Structure formats: structure tokens, C-alpha cells
């Protein structure tokens, strides 16, 4: 065994490698990203009762609020919330079983399903409330399992899960680039949500490269917001409120 167990970094600042930019001004709240995520990542559907009781498995949800009273009432722009892939994630240190760890290579927050014992501390400590727990073994009647993505683990009861930034796509693209002997370029692939978004409100890419599309967008818009940044979580998702 020559691989070293990676060290856990508690407070060292990390800028992150992959990031997302979400333009709320053009997000129409159409749920295409939610559906795309569910299809790509083998998310279970939980049924009416559990979904209404806060047990839906959505890895991404679109939040909206109301401002004002009729007739001057406005719906706030749709705000897709998914794992913010924090550089200093509150979910990571609290897991007693090392199931929530920081990937040194991808600089993402990983959820190692088969290490998870289900204490749910990570979800409790996530200020964004974007983790979903497998409260039950949700039934996927035959032949629905035929559509399961073989690149993504099918989770079972008692395990925490969350948005992975479609890490299976990252790895596939990296492997392809490697086999072709070149560097992975920005925009070569994207996450399921960004790929589906009819308004192109979600852009995914390398936030550590100044010439990448996401970095350009952040510079151009100039007033991006990172949610709950004041907690020191160093989120990788930037929102443009727009309007």
C-alpha cells in the first residue's frame, strides 16, 4: 500500500478548483436542473407524504420567497441551492466516521456512502441545508432501475447524500484528457444541472483558472454573492442576484 491516508484540513483556506456561477436574473425556476440531477445521479423519489415532510432527496432545490403584498407582490428570483462545495466545510469535521471528507485532488466535499453510519451530524451542521438523508429504502419498481446511471452509486437506507458537482463526469473527463495526453480544458464537460438549464443560468467550470468561463462571468458581473460567506465556509458557488 503506497497511498497515504490524506490529512484532514480543518481550517486551511482553500479556494476550490471547480465552481459554479448562477445567474438568478435568468433562472426561471423551471426545475429542469432538478430533474436532470435526479436522472443523472440516481436520486430516489420518495412519494407525496415524505416529500411534503422535508424528506425529498433533491440534491438541488429552487428557493423562492415573496416580497410585498398584493398587488405589489413580487416573487424573488429563483435561487437554486445545492451543495456549495465549501472550501472550509462545516460538514466535514463533525463526521465521526470520516464519511464527509475533503478531496485533495478535486477540492470538493466528498460523501463516502459506504463509510456513512447515519449520525446525520453533517446535515445538521450544514448551514445551507442541502444534504439529503436516505430515511428509508425507497422503492424503484421494475423496470425503472434500468435507467440507473452505472457511474453513480445507488444509495441505500441510512446513508447521507448530497450534490457531488457530478464528480463522475469530472472523473470521466479527466480520464479522457489523460488518455489523450492533454490537460482538461474548461467547458469540456459540465454538470447535469448546468447542461439542462434552458436559460443557461447555471455555469460550471474552473474557478481557479482566471480565463475560464466562470471566472470571466464573475469578473464581468462584478457583484456576485456567496451565500453565508460570513460563516467562513468558502463556498464555491457564486450567485448573481441580477435585476
Amino acid at each position, binding site marked *: 500500500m503506497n497511498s497515504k491516508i490524506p490529512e484532514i484540513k480543518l481550517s486551511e483556506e482553500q479556494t476550490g478548483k471547480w465552481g459554479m456561477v448562477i445567474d438568478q436574473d435568468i433562472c426561471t425556476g423551471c426545475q429542469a436542473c432538478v430533474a436532470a440531477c435526479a436522472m443523472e445521479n440516481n436520486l430516489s423519489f420518495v412519494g407525496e407524504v415524505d416529500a411534503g415532510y422535508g424528506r425529498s432527496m433533491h440534491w438541488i432545490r429552487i428557493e423562492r420567497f415573496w416580497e410585498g403584498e398584493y398587488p405589489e407582490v413580487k416573487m424573488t428570483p429563483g435561487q437554486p441551492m445545492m451543495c456549495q462545495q465549501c472550501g472550509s466545510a462545516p460538514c466535514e469535521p463533525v463526521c465521526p466516521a470520516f464519511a464527509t471528507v475533503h478531496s485533495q485532488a478535486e477540492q470538493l466535499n466528498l460523501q463516502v456512502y459506504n463509510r456513512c453510519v447515519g449520525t446525520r451530524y453533517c446535515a445538521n451542521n450544514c448551514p445551507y441545508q442541502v444534504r439529503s*438523508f436516505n430515511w428509508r429504502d425507497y422503492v424503484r419498481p421494475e423496470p425503472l432501475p434500468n435507467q440507473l446511471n452505472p457511474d453513480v452509486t445507488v444509495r441505500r437506507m*441510512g446513508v447521507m447524500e448530497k450534490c457531488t458537482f457530478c464528480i463522475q463526469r469530472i472523473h470521466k473527463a479527466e480520464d479522457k484528457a489523460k488518455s489523450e495526453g492533454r490537460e482538461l480544458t474548461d467547458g469540456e464537460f459540465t454538470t447535469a444541472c448546468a447542461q439542462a438549464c434552458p436559460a443557461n443560468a447555471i455555469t460550471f467550470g474552473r474557478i481557479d483558472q482566471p480565463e475560464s468561463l466562470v471566472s470571466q462571468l464573475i469578473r464581468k458581473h462584478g457583484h456576485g454573492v456567496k451565500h453565508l460567506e460570513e460563516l467562513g465556509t468558502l463556498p464555491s458557488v457564486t450567485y448573481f442576484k441580477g435585476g
Partner: protein
Amino acid sequence: MSDQNKPSVQGTAGHHDHGEEHFREKHLLLDPLPRGEMNAMVMESMQTTSWRFWLVFAILSAIVVYGLFYKWGVLILKGQGEAGVMRPDYWGIFLVNTVFWIGISHAGTFISAILRVFKAEFRRPFTRAAELMTTFGLVQAGFSVFMHMGRVWLAYWLFPYANQRMLWPNLHSPLTWDLLAITTYLLSSTMYLFLPLIPDMAMARDRSTGWRKTFYKILALGFRGTEGEWTHLRNAMNIFAFAIIPVMFSVHTIVSWDFAAATRPGWNSTIFGPYFVVGALHSGMGAVVMVLAIVRGTMKHMKYFIRPEHFEAIGKLMLIISMGWAYFFFNDYLVQWYGGDKWTKQLLHFHEAGPLGWMWFAMLVFNVVIPWSVLWNHKWRSSPWLIFFVGLFINVGMWFERYIIIPVSVTINRMPFTWRLYEPAIEIPMSIGTLALFILLYMAASRLVPLIPVWEVQEGQMAHKLTRFGRKTVVTVSELE
């Protein structure tokens, strides 16, 4: 204890002395009985079971089998969805119960160790009863933690052991600290329970037959009461009494860190450590008086050993602890409120005005108003049944406090889109099952081990003497240890 002179009271000739009678009636340590008689009383209380005992025992067993084991099976097979937990209330009653039972377990050690260290004499007849509570409370706390886990069949992954996965538990996680602290506490408190039990086991061994004899023989570890054995035992007990106090403080402090170390509004408070410790003592003392009142009321000869003076003394402690709890609560609330963080303010408002606001007010009434208005009075706090109800209220109030801190507080987080109210489901029968198991274990223990540490009482009685100075009778105490 060596076979010294029989505990005696000087000047017992003056039977018409009202002062002396008064002292005897009031104080166990001034009312000695012959040792043999006292031992026989304890043995008899242990061996007597009425049909009522067995009826209650059977009912509780049924509750445990159904509420705890059957329902737990359902929970394991069908998943945590059977409970009321969801986003954002990922933590529910199981953790409320965990904190609650750890709290209960605190008083045992507190009474026993702290009072032993400070040589508070009134402790003598009930240290055992309190220590048993510690151990059995911890058992419930452990059960509750495991009920909470999504994949409890993998719980052993949380223990540090060499494994092919090359993984240690994450020492950054407060849950790992918790696990270590609780395990340490369970082990040390069990040993601390056992040490003073040895002489009583030897006593019981010498006075029983059949399976009981075998049982006590094993547990007595061959104790014969030699001077050397007593010295070693005293030393060990002394060490444990001192050492277990920091362990006790650390356990509940670490439990509080599960919450305080989290980045949640309302939880991230520096005062949670002592606040939780005092809270634990509060509920623990409440539980002790409840147990003592029941034991006194239901078991033979216990009215001799447990007297109003004991309730009176514990009542004073409870009053002080209640004041301490109120102080910490007020401190926590005030500072958080002045902090002005919008989510914390929202949370504090939700505590009082939300759908479970009644619980918040009930908590204050049960934890502060009721103890303060009853326990100040010497007579009232000497009444076993009155103080039993005060203890009951305190325990309900403290359970409410934990309920408010866990499922009610996690309702409010920084993502208002997800706020949702927790509705417990399978937790309720399982909680009742845990409570039943606690009582069941206690009932079983009450018939297997002497609930009264006879030798400690006798030691105390030997040390206390009534002496007459002129017309006055005064108590003198000789230093034993």
C-alpha cells in the same frame, strides 16, 4: 470495618430527654440499630417481593419488549423514516433522550463522589441508589444514541480499532469525543458503583443461600473485611471519588459541545458546557429524590434508612442547583438576544411564540418556579411525596429543555425555505420503552444488590455520638478516615 465497639450513644440512660429522642427520630446516624439487625433488614428488603412487584415488573417487561425491542426492530428494518426526523430536523427525540439520560446519570456520581469528597454525612444511606441511577441512565443514553443512527449495524465503526479500512474515527468530530467520554464515564462509574458494593456483597454472601450465595460470592471478590482490605478499598474509593468528578464534568460538557461546536444559530454558545452540566445535575437530583421517595414508600424497612432529613438535605441542594440553572439559562438567553444575530433572534422568538411556546414556558415553570416556591420551605422539602413531585416536574422540565434545544431549535436555521416542524412518531413508544427499561433495571437491581450501603451507614453511626453538655444534648462526630 473492624469489630470495634458497638456504636452507642452516651447518656442514653435519660430516656425522658426529649432532645435526645428528637435527635434519634430525626437522624439516621444518631439512631443506630444492632448491626445484625440492620443487615437483616437490608437483606429482607432485598428478598421480599410482593405480587405488586411482579405485576409492575411484567407490565414494564412488556413495554420494554414492545416499545424498545420490537419498535427498534421496525426502525432498523424500515429506516429512520419511521421516526419523525427530516430536513431540517435531522436530530430528534432519540438525542433528546440521550442528553436526558446522561443528565440523569450525573446526579448519581455527583451525590456520591462530591458528597463523599466533602464528607457530607447525609449522603450515606443513598449513595448506592444514586450510583445505580448513573449506570442505568447511561445504558439508556447508549441505547438512545444507537437508535438514532441510520446504520446502527455499523456502529462499531465509531470505535477506534485497527481495521482493514485503515480508518480511525475522526477525532475532530464532537461525536467521537462524546463516544469516548461516555464510554469512559460508563466504565468508571460502573467501577465506582462496584467498589463500595464489595463489603455489602460480602455481607449478603454471608447471609444468603442458594443461587444468591453464588451470585454474591462472585461479586464479593472474596472480601473478608480484614484491615488490609478495608485500607485498599478506602484508597481505591478515594481515588475514584476524586477522579470521577472531572470525568463527570467532562461528559456533559462534551455532550454540550455536540451542539455548541455546530454552526447553528442558538447552539453556537460558549456557555453551553456549564449550562449543560448544571442542567444535568438539576434533572439528576430530581431523579434521585423520585427514586428515593419510591424506594422509601415501596420497600421494606426503608423508612428507617431514608428519612425526611435526607429529602430535606437534597431539597436544599436542588434549590441551589435550580438557581444555578436559572442563572445559566438567563445568561445564555440574554447574551444571545443582545448578540442581535437575526437567525438567533428568530430562534429565540420561535422558542417562546412558536407552536411549542407552551413547552418553553412550562420548562421555566417546572425548572424554576415550582422548585423555588416549594423548596425554600423546610417542612415542604422534607415531605417525600411533595418533593417527589417537584423532582418529577424538574425532570419533565429538563426533558422539555433538551427538546427545545434539539428538535425545536433545529427547525430554525439559516435557510428559511427549509424550516419545518418536527412530529415525533416511533420515537414515542421507544422513549417509553427506554424509560420502562430504566425502571425495570432498577427494580431488578433493588432485589439483587443492597440498595443501602449498610457498612457506610454503620460507619456513620459509629462516628456520630450524642453527648450531653449540661442540659443540652449535642452531636459529636469523630473523624474516621
